[in-house]
């Protein structure tokens, strides 16, 4: 057991692609490796959270280790792009996706997923009496203390939720591009919520009756409902919900540029994306793949309206928002 299970012959192996991703857990990595092997790629994943991948890529800029990165959302990719970590590449399937989801140059969309507010059906049967949109949480007195608010702001889901709320109060003259009212609102959001408990899942708390609602992403909702034996309903606000769109990109300075490009072409292609969707309940962005994709996943994903968010604006300001929330809002 003294050689790594997936390595070829070690460092700089031209056959092996090093891929940074936050979406290869839950068996996705193994599945992909297998498929890739059939297609002639040897893959090695570095499986980290979105923020960690971003930080690692930034720090390694001078001597990149990764060849390809995928799975992060717009915000991260915007920041990576700004730091000139990525390299432009137009995949063979670039015409099959809505290029505006990405930047149309360096990173390209593969999967999209809504980030939602879910409510416990036991408390709000069939959504009865549940809030219709996020602001009701802190404006309607009955909900005070009944919804979970995040305490650690590093998570991708949390950042999407915050972006979804704050983006409504864009004011280029305001602090970090947000109006004073926006800051007051977000303050209320945190003040009236029930802080998340580290190590205890939202669903565990809902099962216990400690809270009745909180943030969740699509796939997470279904696996947890099963685990805790409770059913939930996702709110579908008029303004829409933030979509986390996962992208793929080639890392600037990769030593395996050719293989990386070939991989991206294969990975984002209709065939694999459809298979991925069927396997992992996702909605691909590749329009060609949609037909063969898991229709439930696509349908559910499409049942929400995408919130209109300027992701470049978010990427520019998100760090400032988090800093301000940490310092001045939480407490």
């Amino acid at each position, binding site marked *: 057991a003294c050689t790594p299970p997936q390595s070829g012959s070690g460092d700089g192996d031209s056959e092996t692609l090093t891929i940074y991703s936050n979406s290869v857990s839950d068996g996705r990595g193994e599945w992909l490796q297998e498929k890739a092997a059939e297609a002639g790629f040897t893959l090695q994943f570095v499986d980290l*959270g979105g923020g960690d991948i971003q930080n690692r890529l930034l720090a390694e800029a001078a001597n990149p280790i990764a060849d390809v990165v995928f799975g992060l959302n717009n915000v991260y990719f915007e920041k990576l792009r700004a730091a000139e970590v990525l390299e432009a590449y137009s995949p063979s399937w670039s015409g099959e996706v809505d290029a505006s989801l990405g930047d149309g140059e360096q990173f390209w969309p593969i999967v999209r997923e809504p980030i939602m507010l879910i409510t416990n059906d036991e408390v709000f049967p069939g959504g009865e009496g549940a809030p219709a949109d996020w602001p009701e949480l802190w404006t309607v007195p009955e909900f005070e203390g009944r919804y979970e608010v995040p305490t650690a702001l*590093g998570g991708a889901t949390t950042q999407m939720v915050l972006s979804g709320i704050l983006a409504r109060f864009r004011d280029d003259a305001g602090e970090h591009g947000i109006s004073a009212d926006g800051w007051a609102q977000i303050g209320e959001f945190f003040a009236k919520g029930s802080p998340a408990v580290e190590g205890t899942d939202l669903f*565990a708390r809902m099962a216990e009756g400690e809270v009745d609602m909180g943030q969740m992403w699509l796939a997470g909702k279904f696996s*947890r409902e099963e685990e805790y034996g409770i059913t939930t309903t996702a709110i579908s606000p008029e303004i829409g919900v933030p979509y986390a769109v996962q992208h793929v990109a080639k890392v600037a300075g990769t030593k395996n540029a050719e293989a990386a490009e070939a991989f991206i072409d294969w990975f984002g292609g209709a065939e694999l994306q459809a298979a991925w969707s069927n396997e992992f309940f996702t909605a691909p962005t590749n329009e060609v793949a949609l037909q063969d994709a898991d229709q439930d996943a696509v349908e559910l994903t499409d049942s929400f309206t995408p919130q209109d968010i300027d992701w470049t604006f978010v990427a520019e300001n998100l*760090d400032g928002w988090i*800093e301000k929330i940490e310092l001045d809002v939480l407490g």
Partner: protein
Amino acid sequence: MAVITLAVTAWFSLAFLVLPNLQLLAEVFLADGGLSTRAWGRLLGSERAMSSLRNSVLLALTLSVTVNVVGVFVVLATRYFALRGRRILWLGYATSLIYGGIVMVAGYDFVYGSSGILTRLLTTVLPFVPEDWFVGYPAVVFVMTFASTGNHLLFLNASMARIDQQTVESARQMGASQWTVLRRVVLPTLLPTIFAVTVLTFLGGLGALAVPEVLGGRDFQTIAPMMLTFANTPSSRDLAAALAIILALFTIAMLLILNRLERGGTYFSVAKVSTQLTPQKIGNPVANAVMHVIAYALLVVYVLPPALIVLFSFTDARSISTGTLRADSFTLENYATALLEPTARWPFVVSISYSAVAALVVILGLLFVVRLVTRFPRSRMSTIVEYVLHIPWVMPGTMMVLGLLLLFSTPQGVVGGRVLSGTVGILAVAYVVGKIPFTFRLLKAAFLGINRNVEEAASLLGASQLYTFRRVILPLVLPTAAAITALNFNSMLDDYDTAVFLAHPFYQPLGIFIRNATSGETNADASALVFVYSVILMVIATITLWLIYGGGAARILRLLSPRRARRRSGDALPLDPADQA
């Protein structure tokens, strides 16, 4: 040898302690060509930051007291006094050494939390007690106190073994009560070790993350989570650095005070030949009974949480989160998932290798450095070395690591013009760096307990520095060195924060693997898996401790080399009370 040690220390410190941090600090503070002072204003203006900071300092100070009280008691119960069942007590108290973090909090939650055993008991007997009574400052202090006494158990025990029995006897015989002997004769001799563990405790309090996060409630949040967020947010790193500098000031103040107190004292036995301390009988029957009662009450406090963790690791996520057990709660599925996963073995191999290598390198290297520093305690060189080696304690881990990564992703003259990031070695370097202060501090305490004459005698007999060191000094500091190695090894096994940035793609350690399997962002709720991995880590940690304290290593060594088979009372690690039985 001194010269070589000094040269290596200087090079290593420059390359891996000073430059990376300078690089990072420059990056964060010299943002726009000038020195940025933005961070200070932001922090001072933030009520939350200030109150968190206050809480952290308060916690650190409180723990410095409470942990010493409990820790000293624990050591007395297992090593100093002849209590019944000292071995059991030791094993029970030692459980705090094999687990930590969020799982430990969960363990305490099973006892004291809103649906915990004790809470249910309390609320039945005293209905007015609220379910969530176990929250805030007292709860945090309580849990962290018991969690932090492991250092006492190992290191104070080791120094206790070097006290000259006859000094205790002579004090007794001058009419001093057991209590007076303890307070006036025994404890003062242990001061370097007490100081060292106090520094550890203090830092542990300053950097407390999981416990206050979960148990602190709204009123008692500490600074560490905020620092972590800032350190991970590129544009806010100046805040993290500023906070680090503030904490560093507290730490340096603490170190200065303790170093001052420590200097000039004599902590080795001045007896011609000192006799080893044997456990003292407690004369007063009432005191004896009280001592036993407290000792065993503490045993329950110590053992219940980990016991419940083991128990709950065989249940599903729901039982864990609600703290309730039903007949159908039990499952082996989690273990199956954790152990049968085909790729699961490799991270264990990687982690154990990294931990072992780093633990050995750091202890071996620092043995030389500490010897140098304690040989020339008043030289300027020693002072500088000492403070430089403490850098990793005052920089937040993430920043340290990022500094390394940033610096070494371009060719650096200081390492022969090589690029280190992306190599297998850099993670090992980071591990070594991270363990330096802890190792340094405790080793220093151990060295202060050695009478210089012994070393002199060896050198006159022709022994080289190295030989003297190996055959004379080492056996004397071995108990401490072994304890440090064990703790270092165990603490690196599940490291995530360092590995996340530095791990080579092919050699990713366990921490990353566990985090991936169990993080809140995976689709399935994996809190049950967290328990399973914790239990597996507890098993590894226990094996490590057994190797070192239970005589396991000695047994294995004996098999390997019969020449060393005979163990003298002196080389035996006197930490395990069974040795004295």
